[in-house]
């Protein structure tokens, strides 16, 4: 019965959905107008839309991160690559980069393609270090986490490059059919990655590599290729996210763009039910995880404190979620289950002897 798997998946999503729901409820409690959505100039406005919109950069990073974590890895570089994407795109648009030496501004589609190619290549490099040289993921991606921002600053000349090129602003600030454009981009990224992961065999391969790389190899899976692909996807996601981020402020801020976003992305993934040790992954869960983080931040804003204080609440929420997922509590749960149903064990024992 495949229903069992579906039930388990849904229960994974259920706990993160529940967490999101509780936080939203809390927000309603703080601010009764929280749920209200109004239409102004054919655009939807409201706190919920705002949460959705603002969580997009981390959400897209988390989608890429989910695949990486599923292979048992981590990508620490995506925050820095996000900044790099902003730097590359804006300096290409301005045609004034200190390093790219592009005197004339490029056609806009070319800007996007080049930006994504740069971050995709950086991701590929991460994947190469992990898959071919066998370097631990945290270490391998640490390199770009450090150097990525340096490269971004190299490109922007350590200034905050700004632009007012209108088509660029659409990515992060535009509206389409009542909703902000970033939401559509996030939906698009999610659908593409989801399709790739769940409607091809790729997801199965990722999970197999994440659980037991050796057995995956013996089964004929090219684990090296799988690993390189997931890091490249993560790099691409960082690129998309970086375009949205930079377009939102129309500025390439190599120092602060996406600072600590990699941590939020990892967190969103873990909150969404994907285990840090690799294996089963839940793309939908990661999206919800990103929403949880943003909703949490929102509810802190309701108090009159520094936005950074949200970190304390974040810490507590993460502790609770992580503890629930920890083997310690799982073992408690499992042992109570064993006590409840010894019949199952007897059954499989009997099957063995048959």
């Amino acid at each position, binding site marked *: *019965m495949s229903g*069992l798997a579906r039930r388990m998946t849904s229960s994974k999503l259920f706990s993160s959905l529940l967490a999101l729901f509780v936080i939203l409820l809390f927000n309603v409690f703080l601010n009764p107008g929280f749920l209200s959505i109004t239409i102004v100039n054919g655009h939807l406005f409201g706190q919920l839309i705002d949460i959705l919109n603002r969580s997009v950069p981390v959400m897209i990073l988390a989608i890429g991160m989910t695949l990486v974590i599923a292979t048992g890895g981590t990508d620490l570089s995506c925050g820095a690559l996000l900044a790099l994407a902003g730097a590359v795109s804006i300096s290409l648009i301005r045609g004034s980069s200190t390093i790219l030496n592009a005197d004339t501004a490029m056609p806009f589609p070319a800007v996007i393609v080049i930006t994504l190619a740069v971050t995709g290549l950086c991701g590929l490099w991460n994947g190469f270090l992990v898959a071919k040289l066998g370097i631990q993921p945290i270490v391998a991606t640490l390199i770009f986490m450090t150097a990525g921002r340096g490269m971004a600053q190299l490109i922007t000349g350590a200034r905050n490059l700004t632009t007012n090129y209108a088509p660029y602003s659409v990515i992060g600030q535009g509206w389409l059919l009542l909703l902000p454009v970033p939401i559509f981009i996030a939906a698009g990224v999610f659908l593409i990655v989801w399709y790739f992961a769940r409607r091809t065999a790729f997801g199965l391969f990722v999970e197999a590599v994440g659980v037991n790389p050796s057995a995956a190899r013996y*089964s*004929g*899976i090219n684990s090296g290729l799988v690993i390189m692909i997931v890091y490249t996807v993560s790099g691409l996601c960082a690129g998309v996210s970086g375009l949205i981020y930079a377009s939102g402020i129309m500025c390439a801020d190599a120092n602060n763009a996406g600072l600590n976003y990699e941590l939020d992305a990892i967190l969103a993934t873990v909150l969404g039910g994907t285990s840090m040790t690799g294996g089963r992954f839940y793309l939908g869960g990661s999206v919800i995880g990103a929403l949880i983080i943003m909703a949490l931040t929102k509810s802190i804003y309701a108090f009159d404190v520094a936005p950074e204080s949200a970190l304390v609440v974040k810490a507590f929420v993460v502790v609770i979620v992580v503890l629930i997922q920890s083997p310690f509590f799982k073992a408690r749960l499992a042992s109570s289950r064993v006590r409840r149903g010894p019949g199952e064990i007897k059954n*499989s024992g009997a099957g*063995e002897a048959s």
Partner: protein
Amino acid sequence: MEGAHDIPREDILLEASGIDKIFPGVHALKRVNFTLRRGEVHSLMGENGAGKSTLVKCLTGVYGIDGGIIKYLGREIRPESPQHAISIGISSVYQEVNLCPNLSVAENIFAGRQPMRGPFVDWRSLEERAGKVLERFDISIDVRRSLDSYSIAIQQMIAIARALDISARVLILDEPTSSLDKLEVEKLFRIVRSLRDDGMGIIFITHFLDQVYEISDRITVLRNGELVGSYRTEDLPKIDLVTKMVGKDFDELSSVSRVRAGEARDVIISLEEVSAYQSVENVSLEMRRGEVLGFAGLLGSGRTETANLMFGIEHNSSGAIKLRGTAVKLSSPKDAIRNRIAFCPEDRKRDGVIGELSVRENIVLALQARLGIFKYRTLRQQNELADRYIKLLGIATPDAEKKLGDLSGGNQQKVILARWLATEPEVMLLDEPTRGIDVGAKAEIMKLTLDLCREGMAIAFISSELDEIVRISNRVIVMRDRTKIGEMEEDGLDQESILRAIAGGVAV
């Protein structure tokens, strides 16, 4: 058979009674009783999966027990961790060397109880004492070197030295001799005897029968997690011991006999004078359709390595691998699978089972890997495939979505087989397919092998159990010291001649 009541109370060092241990899906120990006396070497015997290691791990606190009591010197104990067990007086040495490769030899012997001068480790006396301890073993090495600069045999001796140095009254040796040569074993036994004479109780686990009879005073036999009995060594002839270990095994296996090969057996895969660096030397062989080719030889003889070569895991440095007459290069398992070769690896847990994934996914995996990322089998197709093989192989699982890790060893092995059958292979390489699974499943897997053979598959059957090889094979390749030393046809097959070939290197 004798019970605990025959023994004077004060002689009993360790007494475990009614021990139960349950893992998800497996009842690993069923009310097992075990008694260890002062000044005896007590062998714990049983086939793989009989529960020996589990019992030992319960005694040393690696696992908690689900039932029963353990008494040490008449008082009930509940070892919570190896550390706790050691502090009680139970130390152990495991088959795999459980030491820290990055520490020096001396430190490995004394880690956790280094001689101190004030608050600091006294390195000089540490090294002196380490040297003295090893003298007892006639080993003179530089104790300041890190452990990983010495061979496994020496590391094993160091592990034992460590266990001995603790003032333990119970010493558990779990397969300590499997990587030692004859001289080293003798050395070890001398030490074990002197410890016994000092009043220590020693639990000894090995699969070498001769060693059991050489060293032990008593023998306890386990089978399928149940106690068969405890015996004085002199009361238990070897043949009885084997019978008790194997149990009804004999009857089950007796129904297994090889398939009479038909006439036209065309060669599917052949090795021609294949050598691989540090792996095998100059191996030639042919595998034919509808035939089981047995591989006999000890661990490290090159039998697994030969299979690895045919599956693209290792690569030949010279010679040729030919598939249906044409030379091929198998650079990865993927290549091999594409050429309709399948491989059930020896270390099922490490190289086969993907425990967190479902039975369905595990079955589909190799086929899907061959098809590639984009030719995705839909969930329905996957379910059909899984259900078919669950039925065909009699896999005992509530449904196809059960995590493979939760099934018993035998059922896991069947799932791995199903994974390969789904790719419709022409060559099936089975490396120790019956290891660590219970007796019933063993017979089933062997029967299945024969069915596949009947259907025209070429099968390589690698096993340490000569009995199995003799029963099932049409031809047997004997390997020793990384090379093929002989080939036997089914007519002349018997265990004795294979054994002689392995042991003596007599040309066959």
